[in-house]
């Protein structure tokens, strides 16, 4: 595999934290601003794809195993389903945390308001679970595709 230049590596190293922070912000504020778990997870995974492109799939595969990503994705999926089961006393996917005194339980006033992070009930937690799942899933797809199509022994025939 051809080495990318030092400029690409440096710029992507600088860009990666900002992309990750922005993606995590989109995930965490999913119940306040446009975005959510899927969108923010895609942003974070695109930041990881930037690293894969810049440093090569071999260097990334040394640090991240696909089994770890699969584990993370399964944790996200199971978390999402178990959060859906939290309100099973009323119905599946019932938002039982909204309107209570606990974390994320605040009900904002009707209409436009500045937005309260501790509101939304189960929605922020579901956003986090789905975000974890999307980060791990998309990064696994990108990483596996990059490893499978690298030049040395990767191409079929």
């Amino acid at each position, binding site marked *: 595999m051809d080495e990318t230049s030092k400029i690409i590596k440096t710029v992507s190293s600088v860009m990666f934290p900002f992309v990750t922070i922005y993606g995590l912000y989109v995930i965490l504020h999913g119940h306040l601003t446009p975005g959510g778990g899927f969108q923010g997870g895609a942003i974070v995974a695109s930041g990881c794809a930037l690293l894969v492109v810049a440093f090569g799939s071999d260097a990334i595969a040394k640090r991240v195993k696909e089994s770890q990503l699969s584990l993370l994705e399964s944790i996200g999926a199971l978390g*999402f389903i178990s959060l859906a089961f939290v309100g099973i006393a009323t119905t599946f996917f019932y938002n039982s945390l909204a309107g209570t005194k606990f974390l994320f339980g605040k009900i904002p006033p009707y209409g436009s308001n500045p937005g309260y992070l501790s*509101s939304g*009930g189960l*929605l922020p937690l579901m956003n986090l679970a789905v975000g974890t799942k999307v980060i791990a899933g998309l990064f696994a797809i990108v990483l596996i*595709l990059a490893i499978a199509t690298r030049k040395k022994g990767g191409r079929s025939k």
Partner: protein
Amino acid sequence: MRSRDAVALIALVLLGSFMIMSVLPLANMIRPFGEPVNPEMDDYIITHAQNETGANNAVTSVVFDYRGFDTLGEATVLFTAVAGVILILRRYAHG
């Protein structure tokens, strides 16, 4: 091969004309933007989403609360995609 092309062309023209004919009567039934046929669901979600879910973003409250089951299927689609990619390309990744 020439006759097959002719048949394909005739079928295309027939299909296209039928599709255009089926759309033409609908042309004066199209409602202006912002006037849906059944606005009850939209109005309910717009007025009640903030109170019931506590989320400012009504889209998130629809996606994760009112239509949570749909999101579960969406997540399953992603899971299946990842599983398929890893299943097919695993031997390249290790060999």
